[in-house]
């Protein structure tokens, strides 16, 4: 499969707080991609920055031939990306990696996201709602301006609980009862977390105690994005002991029980 695509940017909008929402035409990619997978983007046709940048799908709209990402400006690559105008062509590889293993028959799932880590969970929630699965969402952020996708989720009938550092509601001990309650809700078949090691550890413990399959989407610095260069290592526990897996190819989504959260 040729994973090289030329995306035509149709929208690249400042969302405030250094966040941007990019929409691009890429019909084949939109058809092939699944929530939790990502694209690997060359932010500028140059040697500086040299490497691609990975971004999860925020929304997939195969009917419109569009993919969407939601990103935060943190450094050189995302800065250049933020300056791209509608009509610009973007060179991207995708869809890459293993997506979220959403259970077709799940009655309800829990999504737990912090900051920009919420982005891939939005695509997941949309797929869940489309197949009729209920979604509980707990979204954490520094402040309300850096919450991602809360209104979109609400518009899909997702019950959204938001917690923020600003309001003092995001400390682990305050989030724990919320997560526990969500997991305990009848019908909750799977749980997914992204954007915070702390939240991931919390979910790992609470989900394991309840026997609910839980998954995390990890981030690591990447080279190729295709499993070829082995730089995107994450520590996992296997029957043979601890070892490294590739975030780009074996992940970015992993069963929480497998991952060694540092």
């Amino acid at each position, binding site marked *: 499969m040729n994973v090289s695509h030329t995306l035509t940017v149709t929208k690249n909008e400042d969302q405030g707080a250094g966040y941007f929402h990019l929409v691009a035409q890429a019909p084949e990619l939109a058809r092939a991609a699944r929530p939790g997978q990502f694209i690997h983007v060359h932010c500028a046709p140059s040697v500086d920055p040299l490497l691609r940048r990975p971004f999860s799908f925020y929304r997939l709209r195969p009917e419109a031939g569009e993919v969407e990402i939601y990103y935060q400006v943190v450094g050189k690559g995302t800065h250049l990306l933020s300056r791209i105008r509608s009509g610009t062509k973007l060179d991207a590889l995708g869809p890459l990696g293993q997506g979220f293993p959403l259970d077709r028959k799940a009655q309800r799932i829990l999504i737990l996201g912090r900051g920009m880590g919420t982005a891939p969970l939005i695509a997941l929630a949309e797929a869940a709602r489309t197949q009729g699965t209920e979604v509980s969402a707990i979204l954490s952020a520094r402040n309300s301006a850096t919450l991602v996708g809360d209104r979109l989720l609400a518009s899909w009938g997702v019950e959204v609980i938001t917690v923020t550092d600003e309001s003092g509601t995001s400390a682990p001990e305050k989030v724990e009862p919320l997560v526990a309650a969500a997991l305990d809700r009848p019908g909750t078949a799977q749980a997914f977390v992204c954007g915070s090691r702390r939240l991931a550890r919390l979910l790992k413990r609470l989900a394991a105690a309840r026997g609910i399959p839980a998954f995390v989407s990890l981030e690591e610095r990447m*080279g190729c994005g295709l499993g070829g260069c082995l730089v995107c*290592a994450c520590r996992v526990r296997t029957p043979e002991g601890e070892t490294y897996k590739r975030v780009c190819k074996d992940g970015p989504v992993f069963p929480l029980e497998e991952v060694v959260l540092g």
Partner: protein
Amino acid sequence: MKPDLGVEICGLKLKNPVMPSSGSFGLPGYEEYMDLNGLGALVVKSITLHPRAGNPPPRIAETTAGMLNAVGIQNPGVKWFIKNDLQRLRRFTPPLIVSIAGTTVEEFAQATELLEKEEGIAAYEINVSCPNIEAGGRAFGMSAAATQAVVAAVKERTRRPIFTKLTPNVTDIVEIAQAAVEAGSDGLTLINTLLGMAIDVKLRRPVLANVFGGLSGPAIKPVALRCVYQVAQAVKVPIIGTGGISSATDVLEFLLAGASAVQVGTANIVDPYIMPKIIADLEKYLEENNAASVREYIGALKTH
């Protein structure tokens, strides 16, 4: 008439001089994304006798026009390689070059013995950039004697051609090259990465968990070209050039400097489809410049 892209190195017939460099291209793996049979040769990630988990992350740092990696030769070990990867790689038509690494001479020797029993391997590349744990951890390739010891140990155990892959982190690469050739290396690959480091000012920490990493990419091309040229002036064996190659003119620069074939590393990491593009551009360039064969460029640099 189409120009001839074929080259021959140590008896290996390559339909073009372009192959991936060890560790930069998933083999096996990338057959999922493209046709591998268009490449000049296939080179696998370095294999060691025993499995190696590699270094903790982060293992990569971007630098200006380059990158640092500190993978730490993560690999499943030679037995697993033979049982799994080799089966899959044999199916492809380009000659298969297996890169061998190790931390003692004995490890190189044993890995070679195991590989030697297997079909479908065209040649070995000896990666002497690993720390030599019997000599204070300095890479084998930083000492002529240690390089010679490794090469001799492999040479004794194989009838296949061997390419010793040299590190540029030395005072005199010609001396190491000559040592490798004397010990029986049929060809040479150069260069491996330059030792480098990156620092995150905000965190006041090295970017790489391993502190140091190997610098590769366009940034190092001038150093690689210099090494190839220096060594080509001094030895008679074929050279595979590598270091920062990302275009057809880059390939021709290395051939002019004295390489007979080239490897593409970091450029694959940026664009996995770059090698087919380079090969197509190479053909086009030769055609436009009325060169009947790419071999016309090998060592053809004029310096007077």
